[in-house]
């Protein structure tokens, strides 16, 4: 059943609505929420929302509630805008929201009220338009103990335990975890695109987690064992020069120390400005998709192995 969880009027003959679809079978009140589209330029979660429903239609063993929220930022998604248009505001920096606050803050409050109390929330992100990511779950170190066991069920390649940052306290996931609603942040793929392979991998993980939580009764596919690491194992490659980045190494590949990752070139002068080499042996789990770089732009990340 499709429900509106937050709404407001827009100036000219339009309602601003955030919707969810509730799929409920059996007597159990256990609840999993699939949330995506906080950033309007991230579409990987759209495929998961659709395909998960296709699979659930074919299964007859659901016992509980699956709530699907495909777009927390419908105005951004419709206008290919990462942020909330009009306010130019990153929605994932206003949680837990404020009931008495302005539109975006009060809508954020409504979203939290609707999600809190779930047995699990899966918040699906798709990096941004600049970088491609392997399927991974990112966990704040202060919440690692409770979340790692759940994250291991999700069939992702990698679980990144990152250091605490006060900025990230304004995210949906952090705010829900503080309210004792376990929430996992999935990052996968790239902005404005759909990577079907990653979508299916994550759906297998969601089904496996549902089975473990008691929402599904019959068998599900086995899942992979993820790599788990802390910040110190992750090497960042940043551009030393502004230019055009031409990758040589493919995303999601193991590289040797000294492997050539790519080059930064100048199409005006014809110069090669820089050759970027891997500082270690490891997995190239992040790679730049958008070819133009400023000085400092992230080129990739390598997980040292």
């Amino acid at each position: 059943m499709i429900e509106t969880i937050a709404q407001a009027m827009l100036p000219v003959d339009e309602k601003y609505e955030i919707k969810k679809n509730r799929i409920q079978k059996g007597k159990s009140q256990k609840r999993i929420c699939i949330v995506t589209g906080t950033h309007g330029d991230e579409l990987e979660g759209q495929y998961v929302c659709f395909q998960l429903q296709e699979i659930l239609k074919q299964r007859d063993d659901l016992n509980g509630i699956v709530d699907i929220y495909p777009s927390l930022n419908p105005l951004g998604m419709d206008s290919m805008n990462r942020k909330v248009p009009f306010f130019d505001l990153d929605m994932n920096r206003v949680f837990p929201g404020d009931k008495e606050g302005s539109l975006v803050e009060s809508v954020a409050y409504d979203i939290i009220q609707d999600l809190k109390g779930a047995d699990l929330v899966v918040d699906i992100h798709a990096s941004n338009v600049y970088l491609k990511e392997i399927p991974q779950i990112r966990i704040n170190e202060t919440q690692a103990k409770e979340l790692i066991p759940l994250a291991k069920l999700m069939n992702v390649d990698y679980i990144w335990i990152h250091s605490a940052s006060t900025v990230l306290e304004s995210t949906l996931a952090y705010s829900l975890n503080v309210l004792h609603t376990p929430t996992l942040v999935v990052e996968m793929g790239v902005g404005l695109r759909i990577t079907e392979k990653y979508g299916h991998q994550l759906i297998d993980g969601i089904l496996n987690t549902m089975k473990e939580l008691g929402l599904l009764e019959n068998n599900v596919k086995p899942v992979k064992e993820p790599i788990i690491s802390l910040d110190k194992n992750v090497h960042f490659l940043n551009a030393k020069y502004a230019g055009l980045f031409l990758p040589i190494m493919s995303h999601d590949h193991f590289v040797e120390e000294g492997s050539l990752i790519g080059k930064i070139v100048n199409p005006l002068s014809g110069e090669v400005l820089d050759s970027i080499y891997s500082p270690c042996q490891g997995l190239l789990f992040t790679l730049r998709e958008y070819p133009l770089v400023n000085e400092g732009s992230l080129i990739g990340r390598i997980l040292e192995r």
Partner: protein
Amino acid sequence: MEEKVIYELKSLYRDHLRIKGYQFGQGKPSVCIVGSMRGNEVQQLYLCAKLIQKFTKYEQQGMINKHYSILIIPSINHYGMNINHRFWPQDDTDINRMFPGYSEGETTQRIAQGVFDAIKDFEYGIQLTSFYIPGEFASHIRIMKTGLEDIETAKLFGLPYIVVRDPRPYDTTTLNFNWQIWETKAYSLYTKETDIIDEKSVQEGMNSILRFLYQKGMIKQPMSGGYVSEIIEEKQMISLKCQQAGILKRFVEVEEYVEKGQILAQILNSYDASVIEEIVAPTSGVIFFLHVKPLVYGRTAIIKMKIDKI
């Protein structure tokens, strides 16, 4: 006056980004004034330009006291300003969410680090800034309560209001917060406008800075006027929200005193101009913030009022 490039970033096809500082006087780093950090902060750029003009004259007249050095950085994100964009053009990040910066990090972290390195040792820091909701403000000094704030000194600006507020999680990456952590006494100065220039409030903001510098003994020219500042906790202000959306018709101006029951604004139906909602003052007080765009969303705070003390 010494013009210097504080930070420079090369681009592939655009001219280099040069962040310039204008230094007046010689001596210990006394006060740093940062203007436009977002590409739409035109009023803040202009206010700095007027200050640079004033200090150039003061310096020629020997009106800047010895042992004090004043630095003005009029613009940081003019890559954004030159294309009418508030945030960093390529990745839309906000430089004022990147402090203290990181020299090995992403582009805007590097810019923040380059700027912060040049300004972190000043005794006083004044940032001319703006709010994310488009609107007009009563001129005021805003201070975050970090435990290191100096509210008493803020009274030297002589503006009508000093707003004090608790930091939110994302505030920890702003310039103001980091200045305080590095033991600079930091003040955010809000004037009426952002995208457009209001000469009267530019003059008021400029006078308040000159008043502050005179009171701290940095310049010789006294600045008359000024208010006995009222200190307000932000949470004590009333937000008046509209529930309906449509065309906003305002009946009041920012800084205007209003009586309880007075109609402050109406929301009109976008198709037939009928009144669909009235915003009424729940008590008497002063209009502190006013939404100014002609179209307004539902559930939006269109007015903030400073209420009378009971």
